[in-house]
């Protein structure tokens, strides 16, 4: 018999890999009996979908960013030094 902890692992792993028929059956049986794990299943699915919004937001933030001037100059100096060394 699966515990809730086992079931939570399988629910999470089902987002990573195909569960075996035996695992699927065990999980289905457990979910049928356990209201908390049924809620977990729905909450995990919701969180998974929500990650797309998070990605869009992170992308628009990153796309608005520019390499800061100070960092740019630091890198420029490092490149000049590196070039000098490679010529020696």
């Amino acid at each position: 018999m699966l515990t809730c902890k086992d079931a939570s692992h399988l629910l999470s792993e089902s987002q990573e890999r195909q569960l075996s028929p035996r695992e699927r059956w065990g999980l289905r049986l457990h979910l049928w009996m356990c209201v908390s794990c049924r809620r977990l299943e729905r909450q995990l699915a919701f969180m998974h979908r929500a990650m797309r919004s998070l990605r869009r937001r992170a992308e628009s933030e990153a796309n608005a960013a520019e390499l800061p001037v100070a960092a740019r100059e630091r890198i420029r100096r490092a490149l000049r030094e590196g070039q000098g060394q490679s010529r020696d």
Partner: protein
Amino acid sequence: MSSSGLDEHRLSSPETWLDQHGDALYRYALLRLRDPHRAEDVVQETLLAALVARERFSGVASVRTWLIGILKHKVMDQFRLQVREVPLDDPAQVPERDDPTDEGDFAPSGSWRERLSDWGNPEEMAERGEFIAFLQRCLDGLPRRLAQLYWLREVMEEDTETICEEMAITPNNLWTMLHRARLGLRRCLDRTWLNGLGHGGK
């Protein structure tokens, strides 16, 4: 000047890489590492590595593609450094009980300590609340290595094989970490976002 002459000229002056591709490299790194300083550092490492390796640049790919290819590995090196704070190869070394994200969810019998609350129709609630801000805060509240792996896998949708290969961890390690991250996030959302919306009923 012929176009190939122009390419050679560009290749021989790494400072033009910085001018032409610096922002693109920085954005790529920032999106994944979510830390401006680390992002700046990997851009610098990338350009220096490109400088050393420029003879090996075949010219088949564009300079940008070539640089991004180098950057990818530098970004993964950063992830590896952070994820390796705890040895992952040996599951026994990952102290499940000591990990704050696992504390409290399950009784020793493996049952939930408390019945999970009903989130109702979270999609509808997410439209009203400041959901994304809560989500971001909860993610930031996870132990750093968990947050990084979760970000890479779930937000950047990097595939499992690439992550395992680059991090030198087994799929089982990765799944355990992702499971912990998911439960940690779930609990945090339950405590902060749901409570704020006046839900969280049993």
